[in-house]
């Protein structure tokens, strides 16, 4: 899901950076002191999730977890994901500093879909499970789609890579759907307070 340095055109990089800084600044302004530990925990979770690789054919993809992060943090997911991506770029070469803006945009903006779905009020247990599944499924699908669009916007030469990137992430969409569903059901049972921590 990380776009490496030296691939994208400067206008895409600058556009992504401006939007991410704008939303990140808004999130920082909105961030309350008591919410900071929770954002830090989810930043660490996002950072670590990238090291959990799932083999897909000859290659492998990794977990993203932007849905559950968005569901709990809302717009503050931009801070958590942005910082984790910065460290992944600096220490491991996943993505990079110049692509930090566009990568944050592609991963953190879909996290807000998770937040929107989470805000929907549902009473039925089965529908609630489906809702939790989509909190994981839809943000990853949107991120993969945005990644593919970003690559395709760069020029025709990257269109095959854009298609492969989307197809390669398809298993992750379902895996994250189920992981998020079980994680939210578990949190709801053992620590329901966390689900209403950030408004």
């Amino acid at each position, binding site marked *: 899901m990380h776009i490496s340095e030296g691939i994208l055109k400067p206008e895409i990089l600058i556009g992504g950076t401006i939007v991410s800084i704008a939303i990140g600044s808004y999130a*920082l302004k909105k*961030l*309350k*002191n008591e919410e*900071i*530990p929770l*954002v*830090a925990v989810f*930043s*660490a979770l996002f*950072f*670590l999730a990238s*090291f959990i690789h799932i083999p897909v054919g000859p290659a492998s993809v990794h977990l993203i977890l932007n849905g559950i992060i968005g569901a709990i943090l809302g717009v503050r997911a931009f801070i958590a994901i942005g*910082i*984790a991506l910065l*460290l*992944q770029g600096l*220490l*491991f070469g996943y993505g990079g500093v110049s692509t930090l803006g566009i990568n944050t945009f592609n991963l953190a903006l879909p996290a807000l879909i998770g937040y929107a779905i989470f805000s929907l009020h549902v009473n039925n247990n089965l529908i609630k499970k489906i809702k939790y599944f989509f909190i994981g499924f839809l943000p990853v699908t949107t991120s993969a789609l945005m990644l593919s669009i970003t690559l395709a916007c760069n020029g025709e030469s990257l269109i095959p890579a854009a298609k492969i990137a989307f197809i390669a992430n398809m298993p992750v969409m379902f895996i994250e759907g189920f992981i998020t569903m079980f994680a939210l059901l578990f949190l709801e049972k053992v620590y329901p307070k966390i689900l209403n921590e950030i408004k």
Partner: protein
Amino acid sequence: MKYLIVLLLFFSSVYAHKLYIIADDNGKTLHIKSYFTKSSFCQECKVEIFGNNDKVLFEGKTDKKGNASFPFTMKNIDIEVTASMGHKNRISYESENEIVSIEQNESYKKILLALGIIAFIFFILKLIKK
């Protein structure tokens, strides 16, 4: 009878100078011990580790207790120990351990470092927000 005694002396002499090699690894380091008898270690003996196509991977010498250690980088290797007076032995060694590369160790350190930085950044943010 004379012949038998001569023969026994000859074989005991050969046995006394047989060079033994024991090798073990923990996935990171290959440990080698070389000796003639339980109390006679192969001291300052040349040790060579061979990989594929007899390519020398590492070279070194044993210490006073006949021990030598090398980085463990291949699962199938040959170990050759050469002592003075031309005593030499070569064994094939196959490990069941997975290779723990230095890069992997570095990754764990970097992950811990990153988690520390995340904690530090948010700690600073908490101070600012206070």
